[in-house]
């Protein structure tokens, strides 16, 4: 049925502004022309002025990849844990990784949290991860990826239960494993080591629930399968247990947790064991003792592996180091920090079963945000290289340094 045409002029299908303009009385159209001729030049001048003002605004630093670099080092066991996931500015990512290379560390551990890339329903936004991997590759660095945290949709709603980003129940292990698979698939041939979860023997890392080795073994099993399905050559690192003597609802001894993992047959679900070992106030050669948390506690971990017939599985120390915070009772003097750190490298080089020791941490985005981490860092937020950085660099590259003991 044809629409009613009150004007009786439906032959020309004109519509919108043009038709309305034609329908205007002549006087209105001439007014418009007069207004346009009066104000358009002014608007044009204002536009030019705005463009000129915009051109005065400082341009964001332009980041370009330079020629591919290689790491020069006499000590390939040196590794650092970077914190680039929270670094917004790309030039800072590039500068950080350049300093890692210049220091002579060929390997980094970096954190790639699931919720940071997850966009729901199996979709991921890899923009920031791509940026980090691209710059690490450009600097000639090997990346060990630490995977963890949980997006909001995989946690109970806040009105039902208040949780943290580490709250992961068995119902969502398959979803986490899917993320592991997607990550491994995306960075196939570029990232060959992934750490599954962080310090699962702490309640803090389970969203406040008691540490549960059985649950972690299941998470490891599913993640291992997903990772190897995506890339058979990938190496899955399990463990990353926190060194602790505590046995309570908030923490479980790393040694007991690992024993339980072996009892559950979890050795089948990791290709290397990630270990966290800190010296606190003791030197690197302080002898291992189940009742003491020190650097050589890693030897007790190794004993458990050997006892369970897993001697061929290598250890990667993915977190270690000493703090020189004058306000902390678990810290040491700056010179002791240097001496202990270099001794730790020597010890790891002498252990055929240990591949690397990654210093926690290289640099954090804002020192003021976390004093504890700031005093573990080798470089301050403003990129000032601390004496310990210069000492490690001199050690790695065979240079003279006033800070070498």
């Amino acid at each position, binding site marked *: 049925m044809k629409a009613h045409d009150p004007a009786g002029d439906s032959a020309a299908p004109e519509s919108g502004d043009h038709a309305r303009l034609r329908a205007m009385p002549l006087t209105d159209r001439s007014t418009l022309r007069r207004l346009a001729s009066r104000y358009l030049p002014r608007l044009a001048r204002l536009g030019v002025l705005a463009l000129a003002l915009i051109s005065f605004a400082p341009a964001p630093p332009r980041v370009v990849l330079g020629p591919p670099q290689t790491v020069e080092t006499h000590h390939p066991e040196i590794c650092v844990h970077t914190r680039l996931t929270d670094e917004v500015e790309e030039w800072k990512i590039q500068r950080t990784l350049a300093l890692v290379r210049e220091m002579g560390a060929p390997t980094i551990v970096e954190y790639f949290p699931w919720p940071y890339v997850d966009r729901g329903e199996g979709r991921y936004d890899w923009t920031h991860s791509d940026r980090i991997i691209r710059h690490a590759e450009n600097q000639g660095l090997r990346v060990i990826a630490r995977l963890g945290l949980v997006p909001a949709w995989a946690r109970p709603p806040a009105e039902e239960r208040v949780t943290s980003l580490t709250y992961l129940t068995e119902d969502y292990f398959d979803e986490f494993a899917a993320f592991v698979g997607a990550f491994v698939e995306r960075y196939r041939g570029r990232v060959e080591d992934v750490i599954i979860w962080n310090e699962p023997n702490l309640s803090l890392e389970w969203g406040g629930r008691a540490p549960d080795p059985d649950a972690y073994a299941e998470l490891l099993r599913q993640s291992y399968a997903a990772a190897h399905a995506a890339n058979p050559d990938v190496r899955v690192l399990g463990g990353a247990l926190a060194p602790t003597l505590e046995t309570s609802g908030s923490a479980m001894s790393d040694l007991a947790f690992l024993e339980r993992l072996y009892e559950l047959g979890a050795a089948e679900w990791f290709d290397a064991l990630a270990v966290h070992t800190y010296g606190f106030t003791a030197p690197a050669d302080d002898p291992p003792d189940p009742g003491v948390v020190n650097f050589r506690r890693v030897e007790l971990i190794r004993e458990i592996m050997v006892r369970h017939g897993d001697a061929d599985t290598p250890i990667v120390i993915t977190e270690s180091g000493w703090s*020189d915070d*004058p*306000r*902390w*009772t678990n810290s040491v*003097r*700056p*010179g*002791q*920090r*240097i*001496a202990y750190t270099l001794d730790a490298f020597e010890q790891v080089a002498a252990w055929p079963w240990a591949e690397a020791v990654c210093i926690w941490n290289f640099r954090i985005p804002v020192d*003021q*945000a*976390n*004093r*504890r981490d700031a005093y573990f860092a080798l470089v301050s937020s403003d990129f000032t290289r*601390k*004496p*310990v950085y210069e*000492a490690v660099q001199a050690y790695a590259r065979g240079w003279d340094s*006033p*800070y070498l*003991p």
Partner: protein
Amino acid sequence: MSRLDTVRKWARRHPRWTVALAAGVAALLTLWALTRPGMPLGPIDLTWHRMQVNRDFYVGIDPSYPPFAEWTPDAIVGIEPDIARKLGERMGVETSILIMGYDGLYDALYTGEVDLILAGLRADPLYAEWVHYSPPYFDAGQVLVSRADAPVGEMAALDGKRLAVEIASAGDQAAQRWQRRLDTLHVERYLLPEDALVAVERGEVDAALVDAITAREYLRTHSGLVRAAEMTAPDEYVIAMRRANYRLIEAVEASLADMQADGTLDAIIEQWLGPEPSTQGERNASS
């Protein structure tokens, strides 16, 4: 014709506009003056107002740094809690010490949970927009220590001499800067600051550049050494307050100045760190 002449000419031609402009400027200046802190139309320091009404005073302290602040089973003790209590006493209010982790201190100040922070803070430009820092109540910087029979008062006097430092410390970095300024400065590095002081005693070096707290403790039992009067590399501890609390800032700084003048501050520090060792000048004066 100068620009001033042009303005005069314009003013003569437009007397009404000139008067109106002058009146406008005067009004703006008056408004600006009246709305300054402390003036009748100025902002009210609500924290100070609350303190006057409730007679209370909340201080944020991180008790992880003895003897500056320590959490014992009985109480929060140390230099900083004592300073906080004395400040409260002098301002006529009751001090409540709130203990918190170091990283939560500025958040607590920002949200108004505490009125000030006393926790070995250094002035930090990152917070300058909203935080006011008091003058220092303690200087933990690097100080020169030398033998009393061969005193060294300043770094410039060390040309051609030997200096001991704690390796990788702020003293070490200061010594490296001085190596560039002097013709020759031999720097000997030791693992601990006490080792550097032993080297001075033994005559292996001419002076040591160590932190003031270590120097203070060591010199208490080693009378053969003296410290320089001035810090070579200061490291000043200050009190942080919200910039908006101008009346509290005035009151705290006045109380702190009084405590410095009447010896209360020194007495608190001496109670926890022992008496301040005499400087080279004081030794000379007494002898």
